[in-house]
């Protein structure tokens, strides 16, 4: 695969506050890459540096082998789909999409053909002469995509483009974006704080936190082999426990020694252990590797979400078997369900599920979106 963009040691700070701290990232041709992280992690700033709206304080932006730090946005073969679309309210759908071509003085006839072609790609044929202000959020989104793609950029940047859409529409647009990316063969760089979105759409996910890249990998890698407690906690649900590596393939946590598939740690090295809630089996108490009391059961449709108190640590378990609150149960964990991570600065930050609430989690989301870094 061909590298299309390289970020080399990019640092950026605003008013003395470090937003990006030595970012190194290679982006390949034809790839759907997602920058994922909570607000303030630097993902939008990274995108803006690639787009040419910010210049890095340190480091180089390399585009197809050439340094482009000082090339202004309008001369880069990179286009952006903005968070709130930024459609031109004084122009209709056709003129919005035609905007980049008019700037390039493309002949009228060709503009008409290309715009119509683009509008049909985003399934908006017949909307050409509508005002953009009269369109729904989803339709505006499509206009923004058509407008950004019409000049055939090498790279398309998408800044939380689905954030303003409702759930159903968001799911549809995820599929559609993926389809458009495949059809056009353009590299997509997608920014989101929604881990599910990142997992479903991306070829590569870049997990960011506090201006640093935490992990780069495929969705499966990121989910199954998180590099540290931050990634494990941010992507999906996880029980993160303090453990000690006894020797290769043997780890001790929660008062029990488990077989595992990880090796290469020092003997007696303290580690973080990740067990995903869906990888835990509920067994009769007597047969359990671990024993505990069920403290809450929530029906989620496909499965139950069960919180189990094991020696004071609240585990989350997802199961299709029904258990009752206050029931004493045993847990069994297969060796390949256990993932061992080196201790990091994030160790111990993410506690158990004792104060867990789905609602609280969702309630805190809209706020985060609002205060997204400028």
């Amino acid at each position: 695969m061909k590298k299309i963009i390289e970020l080399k040691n990019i640092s950026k700070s605003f008013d003395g506050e470090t937003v990006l701290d030595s970012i190194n990232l290679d982006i390949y041709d034809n790839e759907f890459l997602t920058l994922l992280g909570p607000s303030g992690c630097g993902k939008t700033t990274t995108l803006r540096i690639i787009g040419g709206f910010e210049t890095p304080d340190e480091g180089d932006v390399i585009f197809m082998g050439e340094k482009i730090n000082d090339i202004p946005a309008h001369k880069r073969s990179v286009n952006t789909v903005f968070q709130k679309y930024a459609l031109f309210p004084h122009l209709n759908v056709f003129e919005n999409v035609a905007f980049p071509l008019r700037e390039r003085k493309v002949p009228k006839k060709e503009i008409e053909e290309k715009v119509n072609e683009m509008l049909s790609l985003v399934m908006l044929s017949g909307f050409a002469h509508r005002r953009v202000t009269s369109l729904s959020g989803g339709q505006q989104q499509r206009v923004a995509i058509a407008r950004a793609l019409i000049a055939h950029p090498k790279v398309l940047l998408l800044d939380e483009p689905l954030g303003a859409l409702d759930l159903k529409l968001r799911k549809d647009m995820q599929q559609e974006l993926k389809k458009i990316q495949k059809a056009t063969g353009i590299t997509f760089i997608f920014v989101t704080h929604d881990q599910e979105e990142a997992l479903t759409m991306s070829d590569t996910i870049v997990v960011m936190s506090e201006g640093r890249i935490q992990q780069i990998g495929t969705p499966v890698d990121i989910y199954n082999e998180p590099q540290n407690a931050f990634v494990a906690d941010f992507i999906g649900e996880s029980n993160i426990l303090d453990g000690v590596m006894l020797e290769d393939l043997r780890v001790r946590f929660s008062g029990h020694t488990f077989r595992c598939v990880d090796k290469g740690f020092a003997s007696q090295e303290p580690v973080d252990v990740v067990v995903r809630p869906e990888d835990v089996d509920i067994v009769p108490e007597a047969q359990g590797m671990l024993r505990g009391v069920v403290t809450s059961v929530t029906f989620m449709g496909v499965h139950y979400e069960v919180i189990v108190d094991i020696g004071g640590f609240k585990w989350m378990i997802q199961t299709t078997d029904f258990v009752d609150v206050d029931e004493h149960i045993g847990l069994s964990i297969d060796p390949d369900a256990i993932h061992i991570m080196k201790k990091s600065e994030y160790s111990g930050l993410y506690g158990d599920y004792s104060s867990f609430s789905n609602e609280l989690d969702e309630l805190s989301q809209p706020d985060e979106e609002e205060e997204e870094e400028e």
Partner: protein
Amino acid sequence: MTGNAKTSRGALTPYALWAALFIVVPLVFVAYYALTDNEFSFTFENITRFFTATSSVDGREVHTYLLIFWRSLKLAVISTVICLVLGYPLAYVMARASERRQKIMMILIMIPMWMNFLIRTYAWMTILQDTGILNGFLSVLGLGRVHIIGTESAVVIGMVYDYLPYMVLPIYSIMAKMDIKLLEAARDLGCNSVGVLRRVIFPLSLPGVLSGVTMVLIPSVSTFYISQKLGNGKFFLIGDAIEGQYVANNLHFAAAMAFILMVILLVVMAVMKRITNHRVYGGKAA
């Protein structure tokens, strides 16, 4: 719902009264005086007089009031264009400056407006006189003196000075509100600075330009004092003519001129609004 509608209507009452008393009633009076003679019987005589009255200037017969009106319109349009040319870039720079700068610039623009405009006009007299500050300054620099006072230029300078803030403020306020993302989008899609200005900023600022032009054009067409002081009374404008008739107790003819001026301005504004509406669809101007 009805309760809400009722209270909001109730809250509007004082404004409705105010508007009726100070806007509608005076307009009705102007129209009434314009269309009656000294005995208050209906007549078009005052209206026709405006269009037909002639006098001789330099041995030529001219339509007195049409000539005056034409001159007023010409000076007003020149002033408005100059205000626009000066005010638009100023508003643009202001809207893009840091918040602190914006406040300072706003104060600098507002301060002269706190002074009575007669005083400001007198200040310009002392500046522009043949022995005034400007000529003193020029001769110190070794440049020749210029004769400005008593020319149309002096009148235009006075009007531009007085009315510039009315051009800057509406344009500034619309530019300050403009979504910065739109400008970034334009750059992203291939526009250089000139392109962004031409294709996005300017069309989106048209409603501000329109209200700025309105707020400068209307008072400059009907201005009267500036022309007397800075034009040495040589450039009789329509405002001066109305004032003159009023002072001479010719209330009916004064009202007729005011009425005609008003109708013409309304037509001009309506046409301008139509033109800009054609260009600004989707915006708030509609």
